[in-house]
């Protein structure tokens, strides 16, 4: 029988423990990485499933709403609210107004279009409008006629009538906001 050597230093065992710790940590890291990836994937698909479930359950209500709003949508479309601005038609309408209302002058200034924070896809262009020698009833009529002639949707942000000395006519200064909407789901 060949004698084996006496007990060596425990260096090899220490290295073995160190190796085991490293290998164990690597194993654990691998397991955690795989688990983390699968957990995130499962969460993502769970969220998608919940969304799809809600959308599917909500579909009849949306159909009903759409049916009820069909007329309004048609009106919105005809108003020129959807898609790009039709600035040429707006300015043309202003020219027509000046002639119709026999105004001495009708000055306007249109700012570049800017996105609004009110609603996704909503944009507005501000227009300053100055009309001279307009009577009290004329201002209302002028804005009403502009709504009829111009293909677009505008709101009045401010309007002032500075009367002349007779107290019947004056210069009107209005700020309008022309609104358009582009569907963010289809816009680039």
């Amino acid at each position, binding site marked *: *029988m060949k*004698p084996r*050597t*006496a007990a060596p230093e*425990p260096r090899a*065992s220490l290295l*073995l*423990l160190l190796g*085991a*710790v490293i*290998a*164990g*940590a690597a*194993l*654990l890291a691998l*397991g*955690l990485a*795989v*688990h983390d990836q*699968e*957990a995130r*994937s*499962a969460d993502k*698909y*769970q969220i*998608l*499933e919940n969304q*799809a479930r809600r*959308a*599917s359950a909500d*579909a009849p209500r*949306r*159909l009903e709403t*759409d049916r009820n709003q069909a007329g*309004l*949508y048609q009106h*919105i*479309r005809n108003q020129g*609210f959807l898609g790009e601005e039709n600035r040429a038609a707006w300015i043309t309408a202003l020219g027509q107004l000046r002639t119709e209302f026999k105004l001495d002058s009708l000055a306007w200034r249109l700012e570049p279009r800017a996105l609004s924070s009110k*609603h996704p*896809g*909503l944009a507005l262009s501000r227009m300053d409008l100055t009309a001279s020698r307009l009577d*009290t*009833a004329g201002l*209302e009529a002028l804005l009403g006629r502009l709504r009829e002639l111009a293909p677009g*949707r505008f709101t*009045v*942000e*401010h*309007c*002032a*009538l500075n*009367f002349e000395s007779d*107290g019947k006519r004056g210069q009107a200064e209005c700020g309008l*906001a022309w609104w358009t*909407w582009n*569907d*963010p*789901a*289809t816009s680039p």
Partner: protein
Amino acid sequence: MSIPDRFQPARLLLYLSSAGASCALLRQGRVEQALALPVGEEGWESFNGLLIEHPGLPVAIAVDTVDEVYRQDLLPRARGRDRREMTERRLRQLIHHSPYQAALRQGPLNDDSQRDRYLMMGLSSPDIIRPWLDIIHIRGTYVSGIWLLPTLAISLASRFGLHKSRLLLVSEQTGGLRLTYLEQGELRFSRLAPVDSSQHENPLEGYAEEIERTRQALVGQRLLSRSDILRTVLLDPLNSLAGLHTFLPLTSGFECELIQRARLLEALALPPDLLTESSDALYLRLLPLAPADGNLINREQRLIARTQGLKRVLRGGARLVLGISALACATLLIDSWRLNLRATEARTSTEQLRRQEESLLARAGGAQALAHRLAAVEAWHQVASDNDGFQPGFKAMLDSLTRFPSIKPQRIEWSNALADGQPGLLLEADIVPFEGDYGRAQKLVEDLVADLRRHLKAGSRAQVAAWPLDTSSQLGLEGEFGHSRLSASFRIEVRPGP
């Protein structure tokens, strides 16, 4: 502090006597595979085979021999390294002829001398263990400890609650009759009496003679007085000593007590088949419980045992770390697989739900077209809400002015954000003609405000922001008549309702 049985490291337990040997395996605190080994080469070969079968296992040895030396000693109280150096020095003086020696500390001396009692012990002839140690060395394993059999009696007495009295433990061993005297659980004296069964017809008579001889030795050593009753506990794993009782009557100074096989098995949690042939297995079971300072191994063996022990701990640690990591990794992977299944189910379900929704919305042009139309209408409503303020207020103001011809407007302004950031309508006007009657002017303005309030949208608030003349008593007032035209200008603010 002793390690609980189940956490005792695995080891081979070896009982050696001049008449034979026994061996067993200690695993998870249980003694297994007890085996009697014959004397001589045949026994060594069997032991070698066992070591091959269980490579690397340390060996604990119990030696039952007449070649044993015991010396009671008193040493100054010391701790740690000082105690070790002191006892080693004393052992070299007392038992200089053997490398296998130990100092068993037994407790303090009951006086003020600050000294402790020690039992110095050693193997006077190591011949009995040498061949076995050679085999252990050849097999590359090591000795975790060597104990004289009497030191194992200490834990045995403790197990049976015999550590509070003076007693003589008697057990029949392969090598003869072992007689061990304990005082309050401390080992005081022990001898192995060879048994010659040819001298007596009943061998128990021979045992009784040896017990009497031991009693005389105890008296001779002044451990016992002649008149003392000697409590004699007969360990009887083979149930063969029951008759001994009659040879040791109380009248001769003996108080006999028999611990038979069943009690031994129960107290030491031994498997029933272990004590069928010899009582050696009883001491093999007690080996893991042997006192550490009764270990006889020499310095070199101690160093090897410590190194090997450290290696075992490190390897065990490595196995534990790897095992826990592998288990954790496997758990994580199994859970990942479960999550993957869940994701697949969710994906399938999502596709089904989408198909279901698409088929439902197909007649409305599809989900996208429908969403477009609904979003367009929503955006439209957002804009429409902005348009409410201007026209009604402005028109009501103009209408009211027509009912007050003496009020001449200078400026009417509507804004969705006046100077204070809130929407509102402003009127700046003058009263013409004005003849200096401020009371009438104030009344006219009040009438205009009242008229406005009647015609404005419900909830709107109309109030005078500046009167033709501020008549508040809290303010000072000054003016002059004669150099300028009299004026009755005023300002009215209208705020929409909430």
